[in-house]
């Protein structure tokens, strides 16, 4: 085979320029959004203006409240999320790989999936008290359910031809699992992790609204009692930014780990 008769598919040209354009549009949109907010506040609506919120940001950072709240909230969400994913991945693999495990576990997963994690809070508080345990438990449940389904789907969807290809190359079940099933289902798992993190974050803030002595949700709840709108805005913006940051980190991991996928 001396001559190379085909060339590989060409990369699409002009992608960087398109990206710059998107970034520019994003920036314009954000600035315009803040402008509209400011406009509403000037027009007499009962909301704080951007400088007022910025000032409150400074105060809450200076006295350490914001830092402590962020640490408290992030600790809860990350411990619940890590526990949830750590259990979901092996359970999802077992469900996908062994019909018996699927038959035993699936009804419970499907049942609990239909209950919003928040609806578990009253039960969790009664059974586990008002400490950290019920909050972490609810977050654990939220991320576990999202991730276990995704992992299971990933294993079930592994292309049978790839498994056959590995088998005829001499791979046994253990090798097929480690070197075909795990990498082939990784894109599904990462998507499950992103969904799980999103629902963990949403669940956490709600859990803190109900019962907590610290955290971003608690801070907004107590600000509500004093009609302290700037603090509520600080809370909302912080929650949004942190959620976005966490999602971006997972997205980056996803691109790095599953960049081999053919996108159509």
């Amino acid at each position: 085979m001396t001559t190379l008769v085909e060339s590989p598919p060409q990369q699409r040209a002009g992608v960087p320029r398109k990206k710059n354009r998107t970034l520019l549009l994003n920036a314009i949109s954000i600035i315009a959004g803040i402008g509209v907010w400011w406009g509403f506040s000037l027009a007499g609506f009962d909301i704080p203006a951007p400088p007022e919120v910025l000032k409150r940001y400074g105060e809450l950072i200076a006295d350490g409240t914001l830092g402590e709240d962020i640490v408290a909230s992030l600790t809860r969400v990350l411990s619940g999320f890590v526990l949830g994913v750590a259990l979901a991945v092996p359970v999802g693999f077992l469900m996908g790989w062994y019909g018996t495990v699927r038959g035993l576990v699936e009804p419970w997963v499907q049942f609990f999936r239909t209950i919003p994690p928040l609806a578990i809070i009253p039960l969790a508080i009664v059974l586990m008290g008002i400490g950290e345990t019920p909050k972490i438990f609810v977050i654990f449940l939220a991320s576990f359910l999202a991730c276990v389904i995704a992992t299971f789907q990933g294993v079930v969807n592994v292309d049978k031809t790839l498994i056959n290809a590995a088998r005829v190359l001499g791979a046994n079940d253990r090798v097929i699992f480690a070197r075909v099933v795990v990498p082939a289902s990784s894109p599904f798992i990462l998507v499950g992790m992103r969904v799980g993190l999103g629902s963990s974050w949403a669940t956490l803030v709600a859990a803190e609204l109900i019962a907590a002595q610290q955290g971003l949700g608690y801070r907004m709840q107590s600000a509500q009692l004093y009609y302290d709108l700037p603090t509520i805005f600080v809370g909302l913006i912080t929650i949004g930014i942190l959620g976005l940051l966490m999602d971006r980190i997972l997205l980056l991991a996803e691109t790095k780990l599953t960049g081999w996928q053919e996108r159509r």
Partner: protein
Amino acid sequence: MITIDRIHKSFPLKGETFTALGEVSLELADNEFVTIVGPSGCGKTTLMNILAGLETPTSGQALLDGKAINGPGPDRGVIFQQYALFPWLTVRKNVEFGLKTKGVGREERRRIAEHFIELVGLTQFADALPKMLSGGMKQRVAIARAYAVNPSILLMDEPFGAVDALTRVRLQDQLLVTWSQEKRTVVFITHDVDEAVFLANRVVVMAARPGRVVEVVDVDLPYPRNDELRLSPAFTALRNRVWNAVYHQETPA
């Protein structure tokens, strides 16, 4: 040597018994290039899967050098129509896959992989991911990967079925070059009569309902085969004979 001894394969389908293979017997000599051609539903892929050890016959048996085939093994390399490359591995890692499962050391793996990647003319793409390659290139990687574990038999299931007609002719030429440098027994399944005649020592023509062998045509044309041969009267005569066997099959009542 492969012996296919009165293989019969049937399975239940919607409450009835579907016969994929009626009764098929064949013998393939070492280093022979055999193509199997026939209409869809004639059981050619089933036959290949049985040789690969991915399916078991209902009755009869397939023997490799006198030993019954039960299950896949590295003595038989398989090339699938859908390429079946591991998309998360580079070309090199794909080719090394079978060597790694065999427990071949890193240096040796790399040396062998390099040799077969060069044999299929993809040296400059050794570190590319499959998504960067065209269909024809992917299939050449699959051929290199099958060769790397040093099988005595290559089973190819319509390997060029998914590429365009021009690439297909080039791939056929290249496959014969590879095969002449690294002789193996090849069982090549196709529904393309020209392809079947151009590649083979022997063409096995199958018919459907039930799947069976209707004719075996010896292709006594010399290798290396080239474009000149494709257009020669001798080729055309054989091609017409196979064509008639494939397209003018008497359907049993």
